[in-house]
């Protein structure tokens, strides 16, 4: 497995673990104590606003640890920057993740149109965001491994 494949795997694991961990924490903290909170728009706004910086910081930390660990273990020279192939793979992966997120956004709006409430809408929207992140990393892994 190359450096770039391992880097994509780190992003995949970090994104999934942080998002799932955060929402398990949110649900166990609030859903059990006050079920009405789940349909409160300001609650969801706060939950998402907190998640974004937390996720960015933790993913950056995960990458720093990965780079340090990789440099210590591997004798291979670490790529100083992304080249044309890396950029092309990133673009293709981002395109795939946008497809997934667009589908999720459409489903979230459908949930609102069907009067399913903010809880279902945000659940669909956040799941789509998580899934789009997963699709981005998996697409990168696929393109690095299989070629294009």
């Amino acid at each position, binding site marked *: 497995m*190359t*450096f770039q494949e391992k880097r994509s795997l780190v992003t995949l694991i970090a994104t999934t673990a942080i998002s799932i961990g955060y929402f398990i924490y949110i649900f166990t903290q609030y859903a059990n104590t006050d079920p009405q909170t789940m349909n409160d728009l300001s609650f969801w706004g706060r939950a998402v606003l907190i998640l974004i910086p937390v996720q960015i910081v933790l993913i950056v930390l995960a990458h720093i640890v990965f780079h340090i660990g990789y440099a210590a273990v591997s004798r291979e020279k670490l*790529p100083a920057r992304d080249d044309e192939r890396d950029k092309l793979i990133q673009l293709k992966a981002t395109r795939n993740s946008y497809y997934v997120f667009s589908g999720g956004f459409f489903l979230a709006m459908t949930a609102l149109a069907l009067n399913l409430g903010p809880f279902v809408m945000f659940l669909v929207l956040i799941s789509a965001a998580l899934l789009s992140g997963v699709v981005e990393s998996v697409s990168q892994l696929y393109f690095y491994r*299989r*070629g294009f």
Partner: protein
Amino acid sequence: MAKISIQNNIRKLRFFRDEMTQQELADLVGVTRQTVAAIEKSKYSPSLELAFRIAQVFELPLEEVFIYHPEPKKT
């Protein structure tokens, strides 16, 4: 795997250059070693600019480094 109709002689040309490593070639043309490996295995078709840079390293015309095999037209 995506079928790429561009083949290349990079492995052979590296051998004739005193077994130049993939990393050395990568440094000379400004890409990562993994990209050179992917090009060699025909897993990635380089941009025209990169293809010219690789040919320049071996001091050969482009068509002696890269060979294009067009797929037969379906009738």
